[in-house]
């Protein structure tokens, strides 16, 4: 039953993703990529459990590596996206439009 449930969530999320991303204008495609890159760093959440489980040496090592790489993705991805988005400006005078 869990298989069906997880698959259900997976399929719905993909459809939701299509709906959301289709509305992103092409001018924002680069920030979209770096921002979604940061979201894919969500693997960090899974990695934390492996790194801290203290069950097995190999799982701890792999988990710690995964934590490091996923954190690069998360921190780097969000920061660089913010840096980019801060540069997007409308023509001056048209403020608040």
């Amino acid at each position: 039953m869990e298989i069906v449930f997880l698959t259900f969530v997976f399929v719905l999320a993909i459809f939701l993703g299509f709906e959301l991303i289709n509305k992103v204008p092409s001018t924002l495609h680069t920030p979209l990529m770096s921002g979604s890159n940061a979201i894919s760093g969500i693997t960090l959440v899974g990695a934390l459990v492996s790194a801290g489980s203290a069950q097995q040496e190999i799982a701890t090592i792999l988990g710690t590596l995964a934590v490091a790489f996923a954190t690069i993705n998360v921190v780097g991805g969000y920061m660089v996206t913010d840096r980019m988005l801060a540069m997007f400006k409308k023509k001056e005078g048209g403020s608040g439009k």
Partner: protein
Amino acid sequence: MNTEILINLVYVVAAVLFILGLKLLGSPATARKGNLVSSAGMFIAVVVTLLDQNIIEFQYIIVGIVIGTLIGAVVARKVEMTSMPEMVALFNGFGGLASLFVGWAALSIALVTATVINPVSAFTLITIFLSILIGGLTFTGSLLAYGKLSERISGRPFVYSGQRIVNSAILIAVVVCAGLFIQDPSDANWLYLAVALSLVLGVMFVLPIGGADMPVVISLLNSFSGIAAAAAGFAIGNILLIVAGSLVGASGIILTNIMCKAMNRSLSNVLFSGFGAVKVSSAAEIEQGEVKPMSAEDAYYVLEAATSVVVIPGYGMAVAQAQHVVKELQELLEENGAEVVYAIHPVAGRMPGHMNVLLAEADVPYDLLLEMDQINPRMETFDVAIIIGANDVVNPAAREIESSPIYGMPVINADQARTVFVLKRSMASGFAGIDNPLFFKDNTRMLFGDAKETLSNLVKSFD
């Protein structure tokens, strides 16, 4: 309250924040807020996960987070806007690698905790394998894409006969290894072999793809990094990984699709045909003629008289770092009473939206940036079209010459402007190795030299 329930409830909130963040990315005015909302979702997800009762030691977690934060922060601050494609490629790869490690770690834990009565289910093993396989090929594929984009290795497509057969064989071998391993999880050699093969597959998959097709590859690898995260989510039964991974996967697929459409090619054509490695045999059919060079000084007189100017940037603008001087020229032209807009082709540059970010860096307002479909109907009304380091995306052969390899690709019809300035280093053909009849048209003038220098000379002429 039970911790597990608490964690999962907070995951729901995190998923909502990711979704809202992506929704806010729908407009440049709210995009920055959207990114903040999304990062808040990530933050609470990470914090609440630390409450998980399976986490006993924290020292390795802290080490990993500190190292990752330092590297991520430094890279995000230092990276040049022109190098954004290779940075995104590299980050895609890290995402893939993290999924590979999570899958692998989940496997070793699952095998230890499994008992004879309660063995690891085939479903778990399959999803673990998928996260390792997709993560692995995303990692090496992205590293290779990074190498090509940063020009550490040649950006030329590498094609050999039987490429498809070799790639299919590797894929089948991975599946066989997976099957054998699931049959008997105690023999880890099959696992190691599958990991190695998935790494090889990533290299083989990006090898035949050339620099100009990079927008497609980066988008696809972006999608893979999301799908790998979703697969890892299946493997460890974590819903948040599945939701977030699928959102990213869908995003990458949409971008891939947009890029393919903009080149009028199917995904399989981009992936397997090694575009640009094929020599154009029908060169004789392409009309040749005299190119008409022009000095910056003469170009100035034309620009001074112009009332409407459209700038069409390409990868050459990024290479020459010319975005700031373009903006200077725009201001001078505007002071002179001319209307200036920019026309952006979807595949201009090396990743989706590459030109938009560069121009945003130079403080060009985003409402001056028009898409191909907006600009083409009014192209005839422009006095001057200035093409900066773009080639294939303005090639009229795509409309006129049926034998051209890019025939049918939607292009910006720069040739329909009254006068066309082409800023170009030399007469070498574009990335795809296709002649561009635009250079020989009566209304085209060539401004040879480094784009930044040529533009600086133009700017100086206005003083």
